[in-house]
């Protein structure tokens, strides 16, 4: 792999193109975390009493918990008292329609490639735009409502559909689940809420775009998706943040509930700022995502492309409770420079004839460290459960690391669990083959890497697949040589 060194240099120095800061006045609460802060957040959102109580319970639980240390991640300790837990762009008056959204915000999202204005909207994609701690706009709301689909920010849902929120909040990820989930439950500020009624097939892709802008803030959003009997929804999530030398914390919780015969497809393209070439700055991404196939014949699939963040700690899982339910996890995780990712999935087989598929592709370059950590658990009553896991790692460069820690816990003799993993680099023969046919080394690598990830990308919605494949190119540029 002998590409001219100067081009590699040039490419490697290419800037993170979403690294700008929007100069906007923010409504910020004081630094630190205590019960008053939680009360303040809850008051700002004008929440009903049950929400505040739930938050306080979560906070009290969080105080008794310890930060998990088992992950294969190394980072300097997080000072939870030095974080601003709420920051919202100042708005002159309550938002009636999109036209009243601050020009600056609209420009920001446009720059990020997410136009919120009516005429420029992405056809067929409804977007909920979250800026720091609050949702600033949600498109196609009315059109969706005609079908009975509720798609709005979490704060709105708490106001307008408290019964639904109360019924499902914390049923998949209880606040006591883990340290970061407890923290999120205490301080979460916004996020998206989606409810698809019985038998409805959501006609468009739903999407949330998360943007961190303010300094020293943490983003704690919460997403809840409920798919009623026989419904279908496809949801996408994207995220970016400005370039800063300091680390910012992002601790989100996502809960999915699929009832009988419902299907939820959840796709993520995570592109938080990853830190510079020396590993300074970047987002700490500690996320708890879990879906519950509560009804028979339901199906939840997670597809993720993780290219950003200095630290990724994320294990989207599926609780396969309904009989014949299906859980899927497709992941591409890229670590370059000093990025670290410890990611994987949890498949808990409870119901009969439940099936799960895990395909994980890890790519490590530079000094990156990429860990797959997954659990497949088959409980005694999960007759005929099946799992297939494949996790492959590609190593680019001799300073990086790739690790695989699959856990298999099987308690049922009629089930079958398979795990396969391999780790290798792109062989010189493959590069030679491509070069011989007139491709540059750089193109050859990009082609091989894309081929390596194809199995995952094909599960992404069209718009995302193109984006993901471009993103992969950018993340890895300069790592080949």
């Amino acid at each position, binding site marked *: 792999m002998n590409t001219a060194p100067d081009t590699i240099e040039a490419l490697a120095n290419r800037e993170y193109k979403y690294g700008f800061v929007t100069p906007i006045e923010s409504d910020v609460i004081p630094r630190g975390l205590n019960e008053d802060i939680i009360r303040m957040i809850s008051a700002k959102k004008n929440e009903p009493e049950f929400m505040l109580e739930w938050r306080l319970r979560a906070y009290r639980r969080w105080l008794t918990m310890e930060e998990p240390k088992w992950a294969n991640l190394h980072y300097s300790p997080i000072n939870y008292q030095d974080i601003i837990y709420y920051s919202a762009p100042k708005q002159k008056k309550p938002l009636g329609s999109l036209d009243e959204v601050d020009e600056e915000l609209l420009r920001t999202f446009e720059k990020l490639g997410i136009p919120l204005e009516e005429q420029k909207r992405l056809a067929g994609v409804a977007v909920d735009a979250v800026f720091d701690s609050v949702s600033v706009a949600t498109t196609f709301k009315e059109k969706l409502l005609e079908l009975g689909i509720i798609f709005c920010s979490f704060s709105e849902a708490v106001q307008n559909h408290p019964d639904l929120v109360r019924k499902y909040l914390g049923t998949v990820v209880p606040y006591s689940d883990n340290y970061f989930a407890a923290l999120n439950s205490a301080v979460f500020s916004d996020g998206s809420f989606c409810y698809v009624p019985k038998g409805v097939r959501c006609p468009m892709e739903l999407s949330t775009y998360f943007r961190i802008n303010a300094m020293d803030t943490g983003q704690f959003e919460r997403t809840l998706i409920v798919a009623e009997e026989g419904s279908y929804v496809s949801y996408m999530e994207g995220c970016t943040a400005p370039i800063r030398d300091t680390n910012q914390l992002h601790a989100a919780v996502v809960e999915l509930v699929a009832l009988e015969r419902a299907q939820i497809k959840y796709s993520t393209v995570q592109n938080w700022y990853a830190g510079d070439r020396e590993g300074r700055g970047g987002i700490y991404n500690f996320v708890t995502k879990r879906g519950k196939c509560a009804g028979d014949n339901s199906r939840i699939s997670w597809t993720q492309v993780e290219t950003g963040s200095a630290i990724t700690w994320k294990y989207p899982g599926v609780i396969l409770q309904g009989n014949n339910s299906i859980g899927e996890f497709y992941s591409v995780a890229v670590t370059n420079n000093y990025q670290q990712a410890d990611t994987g999935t949890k498949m808990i087989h409870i119901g009969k004839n439940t099936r799960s598929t895990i395909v994980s592709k890890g790519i490590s370059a530079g000094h990156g460290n990429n860990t797959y950590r997954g659990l497949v658990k088959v409980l005694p009553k999960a007759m005929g459960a099946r799992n297939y896991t494949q996790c492959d790692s590609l190593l680019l460069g001799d300073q990086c690391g790739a690790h695989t*820690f699959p856990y298999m816990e099987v308690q049922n003799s009629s*089930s079958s669990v398979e795990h*396969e993993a*391999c780790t290798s680099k792109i062989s010189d023969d493959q590069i030679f083959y491509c070069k011989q046919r007139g491709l540059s080394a750089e193109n050859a690598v990009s082609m091989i890497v894309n081929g390596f990830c194809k199995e995952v990308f094909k599960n992404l919605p069209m718009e995302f697949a193109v984006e993901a494949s471009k993103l992969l190119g950018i993340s890895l540029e300069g790592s080949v040589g």
Partner: protein
Amino acid sequence: MTRIPIEANPYIENFDILEKTEFAKDPPWFRSLRKAAISHFAEKGFPTTREEEWRFTSVSSIATASFKPVPANRKDLFASGKIEPFLFGLKECARLVFVNGLYCEMLSQMPPRLPSRVRVENLARVLEESPDLVEGHLARYAPYGNNGFSALNTAFIRDGAYVFLPRGAEIEGFVHLLFVGDRNEALANVRNLIVAERGSRVAIVESFVSLEDSAHFTNTVTEIQVAGDASVDHYKIQNESSRAFHIGTTEVNVGKDSRFSSFSLSAGSRLARNNLNVCLDAPGGECALYGLYLLSGSQHIDNHTMITHAKPYCNSREFYKGIVDEKSRAVFNGRVVVVKDAQKTDARQTNKNLLLSDAAHVNAKPQLEIFADDVKCTHGATVGQLDEEALFYFKSRGIGEGAARALITYGFAKEVVARVPVEPIRLHLDRLVLRKLKQEGKGGEEM
């Protein structure tokens, strides 16, 4: 799991007594090694399920029971007929027999001729007559800090086997080390040291058995050094009584262009844990680890293997299979670590489990940790049951359900056993597998 308070720990009390009596005559380096090991144990205690490495295996039943070493002046003598079934039908080979961890000369034998300078003897004798021989080697590759059991073993080193092969030496056939436990509450603290110098070649068979149905505890550590161009084949056959406890650690250091192979069969004991750590410490090293575990009743067998590719151009192969029945629980944890700069590593690992009962558990955890880029590493693990189609094939040809099940299960195990190159051992293992499967009673009588 509760940790026993240090003051009340019988092992430490026992050590303090022995330190003033039996161990007082040891050379100073050895005494300080013992002391360092016991203080490590005093600090760390027995591992608990809070530790990742022991998450699925609770040793509280060992920690709370009181196993005692059998007094040194008591040598168990019994009719040699009793151990006959464990001898592979061989009369000639070099054999050291240990009863409750102590050497029994009466039962042991040496072939008429061993190559010059080759030593096959019991460690206690070496420590007494020429401790310099083992000074640089003992605890070099098996650090007592790895776990509480290794620390305990090091503190109480008494006896075990010492096998030394000088440059280019070769022992014909194999060296058989037989460890017999026959007493309730007996602690057999076995320490083996095998040093194979440049260009030498040896096969070692360690077998662990029980007489009667005794509930004894074997805590064994084997250190193996394979120098350059040497070859060591190691067999460990553990078939102790269903009331026994077994904790075994084998630490291997493989030198340049050398090869090491290991075969491990675990069929006995109530609770067994095998740690097998192989370090490929110089370019060109090779190791192949094969394992088979057969569980029934309420047995708990845990196999932890770790292969460290410390230098480039090394190959490793690992193939472990398990048959897990009734209320038993099997744990497999296979770790392959490729350190920075260990380029051109080729590592493959396979683990397959046959789960025959709903009350049985399997915890499989293959792990790859890779810090070099020019490597080929794969692992695969499966947990499954008997193939319905294979059963149907048999049944459609007039073979009953029970017999068909037994045949398929036997075939599953055979894949590992068939890889044992030494015929007498292979036949012995084959019989052992058949007997064990018959015990499990799944139509065994039809076979």
